[in-house]
C-alpha cells in the first residue's frame, strides 16, 4: 500500500522538528557553558549569537528583553510565542506524530509524547542548572526517539523521518558555523587569527564533536580544523558532508521502495559530488560565508524538490 501524501509530509516534518528541538537544546546547553559556567563569561554576545543561529534574533528583539541568560534561555526553551523554541518544536513534532500515529511504533510515539509532557504547564526554566537539566532531558527523549526510529522497520516511514532530520541537520550545522564564524571575526582580521578558544569549543559542543575533533586533529584547537571537521568530514554525523551523503542514501532507499525518483535525487547527488570535491582551504579562501549561504539556499531548494517528489499536500 502506498503511503498517503499527507503522512509522508508529516513524517518528514516530524523528523525536522525533532532534530530542530534537539539542536536548540544543544545550542542552549553550549551557550550556558560558554557564558554562565565559564571562567570567562561570554555575556550577551554569546546569547545574541544563539538567537541568530536559531533564526529568532528579530523575534527576541521585539520582546524588549535584554539578551541575558535568563531571558534568552527561557525564550529558546519555553516561549510559546517563539515558533523556534524547543516547546514549540516539540509541539509541532507531536502534532505531526499524532497525525501519523499509525506509521509510528508505540516506542517512537511515547518518546515524543514524553518530551512534550516535559514542557506541559511549565512556566519557568529556573537557573542555569535547572535549564541544563531540562535540556538534558530533552536530549534524552530525542535520543530515545532516534533509537526508536532505528528500531522501527526500515520502511518509507523511517526513511522519511530520517530524511527530514538530515535536511534539518544540514541547515542547523551550516547556520551554526556561519553565524559563529562571523561573530568571532573581529573587524579586519583574517581567518586563523586571534580567536577565542572557548567559543570554538562551544561550536564543537553544540554538535557533539569535541571528542571527534581530538581524534582527527592532533594540533589543538584551530578554527580551520573546526571548519574542516564541520563542513567536509563525513565521519562526523553532523557535518555538512555527512548530512549531504545521508540525504543521497535516504533518497535512494526511498526510490527503491517507492519507485519514486526525480528532481530531489538529482539535486542531492549533484550536491554530494560538489562537496566531495571541495577542499576546506579553498572554501575558506573563496569565502566561507558565501559558501554557507549558497549551501543553505540549496538545502531549501532540495526541501522544495522533496515536497514535490513525494506530493506533500
Amino acid at each position, binding site marked *: *500500500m502506498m503511503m*498517503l*501524501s499527507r503522512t509522508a509530509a508529516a513524517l518528514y516534518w516530524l523528523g525536522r522538528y525533532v532534530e530542530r528541538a534537539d539542536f536548540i537544546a544543544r545550542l542552549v546547553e553550549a551557550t550556558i557553558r560558554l557564558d554562565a559556567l565559564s571562567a570567562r563569561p561570554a555575556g550577551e554576545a554569546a546569547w545574541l549569537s544563539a538567537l541568530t543561529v536559531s533564526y529568532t534574533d528579530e523575534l527576541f528583539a521585539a520582546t524588549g528583553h535584554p539578551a541575558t541568560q535568563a531571558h534568552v534561555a527561557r525564550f529558546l526553551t519555553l516561549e510559546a510565542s517563539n515558533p523556534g523554541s524547543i516547546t514549540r518544536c516539540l509541539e509541532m513534532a507531536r502534532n505531526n506524530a499524532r497525525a501519523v*500515529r499509525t506509521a509510528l511504533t508505540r516506542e517512537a*510515539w511515547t518518546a515524543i509524547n514524553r518530551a512534550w509532557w516535559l514542557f506541559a504547564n511549565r512556566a519557568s526554566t529556573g537557573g542555569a542548572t535547572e535549564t541544563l537539566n531540562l535540556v538534558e532531558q530533552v536530549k534524552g527523549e530525542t535520543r530515545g526517539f532516534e533509537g526508536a526510529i532505528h528500531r522501527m522497520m526500515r520502511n518509507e516511514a523511517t526513511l522519511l523521518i530520517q530524511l527530514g532530520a538530515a535536511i534539518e541537520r544540514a541547515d542547523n550545522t551550516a547556520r551554526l558555523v556561519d553565524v559563529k564564524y562571523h561573530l568571532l571575526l573581529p573587524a579586519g582580521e583574517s581567518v586563523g587569527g586571534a580567536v577565542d578558544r572557548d567559543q570554538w569549543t562551544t561550536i564543537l559542543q553544540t554538535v557533539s564533536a569535541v571528542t571527534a575533533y581530538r581524534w582527527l586533529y592532533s594540533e589543538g584547537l584551530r578554527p580551520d580544523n573546526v571548519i574542516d571537521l564541520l563542513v567536509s568530514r563525513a565521519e562526523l554525523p553532523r557535518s555538512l558532508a555527512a548530512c549531504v551523503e545521508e540525504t543521497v542514501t535516504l533518497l535512494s532507499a526511498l526510490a527503491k521502495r*517507492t519507485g519514486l525518483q526525480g528532481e530531489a535525487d538529482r539535486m542531492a547527488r549533484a550536491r554530494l559530488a560538489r562537496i566531495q570535491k571541495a577542499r576546506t582551504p579553498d572554501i575558506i579562501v573563496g569565502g566561507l560565508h558565501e559558501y554557507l549561504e549558497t549551501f543553505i539556499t540549496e538545502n531549501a531548494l532540495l526541501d522544495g524538490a522533496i515536497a514535490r517528489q513525494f506530493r506533500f499536500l
Partner: protein
Amino acid sequence: MGSRGAFDEIWGHGGPEAPRAEFSALSQWIADTPPEELQRRQQSAEAAFRQLGITFAVYGDSDAAERIIPFDIVPRMFLRHEWEKLSDGLVQRVEAINAFLEDIYGARRILDEGILPPELILRNEQFRPEVAGIRPPHGVWAHICGIDLVRTGPDEFYVLEDNARTPSGVSYMLENREAMIRLCPELFRDFRVAPVDSYPDMLLETMRSVAPLGRARPVCVVLTPGHFNSAYYEHSFLADSMGVELVEAADLVVDDDVVYMETIAGRVRVDVIYRRIDDDFLDPLVFRPDSLLGVPGLIAAYRAGNVALLNAPGNGIADDKAIYSYMPEIVRFYSGGEAKLPNVETWRCREPQALQYVLDNLPELVVKLVDGSGGYGMLVGPTATSAQIEAFRAALIAEPHRYIAQPTLALSTVPTLTDKGLAPRHVDFRPFVLTGSDKVRVVPGGLTRVALREGSLVVNSSQGGGTKDSFVLLGDAA
C-alpha cells in the same frame, strides 16, 4: 438517590460480606489485594494511558484540553448466561435498527402503517432527505452500533440509548483489557474471560464484507476529522490495529464518482470508509457548505454505489432520542416479536398528558434534551436543587417537544476503588455490535462507564466518569 438499595453486581444486596455466589472468587480477590496495591496498579495503568496519549478533550474546558479518563482496576463481570441473553437482545435490536433505516430511506412502510407519527421523522433534522433513495452497498446501514445499557437487578437490563452514528469507546474496551492482563494476570487464571482482542479483525471483516461489488481486494480506510478531535486516539488505534490507512478529508478526492486517496505514488482507489466524522461535515456539496472537513463529491460516489460508508449517512434518525421511545414498536414492526431488551419507560413531553405527568413529578425524574448528548442538558431530579428543577420546568413549558423524561432508575453498582477504599459506584454499559453483509456479531465485552462520585448517576467522561474493564465469563461459576 444514593447507592443504598441499588443492586451491586458483585456484592448483590448483601454487601462485601455476602457476595453473589458466582463472584465469591472476585470478592475474595478484592479482599485479599491491599487497597494500596490496587491503587498502585491503577496508577500504573493510568500512566500507561497517558504515555500512549489515550486522552480526550472536554468540551468547553480549554485548560485541560487533554485528560485521560480515569480507569478503575476492579473489573465488571457478566456471567455466561447473562451475556447470551443480552447478546440475543442486542442482535434483535440492531437488526431492527437496520431494517428501520432501510425502510425509512426507502419505502417508508412504517409511516404508511401508522406505527410512527410521520412528522416525527419528516420534520426531524436527523432524517436526511439528501440521502433518501440511496441504498448502501449490501443494504447495511448501521454497521457499528454501540447500545447503552443499564441494569437494575440480576436479570434486569434496559436500553438507555442507541448509538447508530459513530459510537466511540471501543479503544477503551481494548486498552483496558490490555492493562488488566498486564496488571492483574491472576484474575485471568481465576476466571475464563472471553477475549476481546479480535475486535479489529471483526471490524475489518465487516468493512470488507460491505465493499461495493466487483472490488476483489477492497481498500478500506478510517476517516478522522484530524488529530485535534477528542476521539483521535481511537481513530488511529483502530486504523493501526486493522492495518488500514487513517485518512483525513484532505487526503481524499472524488473524481468521476469514485473516491481516491492521495498517496506519494498518486491516487489509489478507496472502496470502504469507516468515517468518524458527522454527516454535516461529510460533503460540503450536499450537507454543510461551510464544512472544511468534508470531501466534495463523496455523497455522489456513495449514491453511485462506488463506495461504502460506515455508518451510513442519515443514521441519526435511528438513534434520535425522540425516536427512542418508539423502539419497542419499531422492533415489533420489523422483527415480528417483542423486544428482548426493554426500553426505559419514557415520557414524550411533546404529548400533553406526558408533559403534565413530567411537570408533576420532576423531583423523581430524569429529564433529557432530545438532541443533547454527553450528559449535557440533563436534569437528574433526585439530586437537583430546587432552582435547577424550576429552570427545567420553565424550559419544558416553553419547548416541550425538545424533552423526554424517564424514571430515576436504581442503576446497578460495581465495587470501585475510591479514596476510602472499595465502595459501590453506579455503572452503565456500552457493548458494540457489528453488522456486515453476512451476519451480526456482538463482541464479548464492551465499555463499562462508572460514575466515580458517590451516589452519582452521571457516567459521562466529560462529567467525571471513569471506565472499567468488562469481563464476559466463559464458564458460569468460578
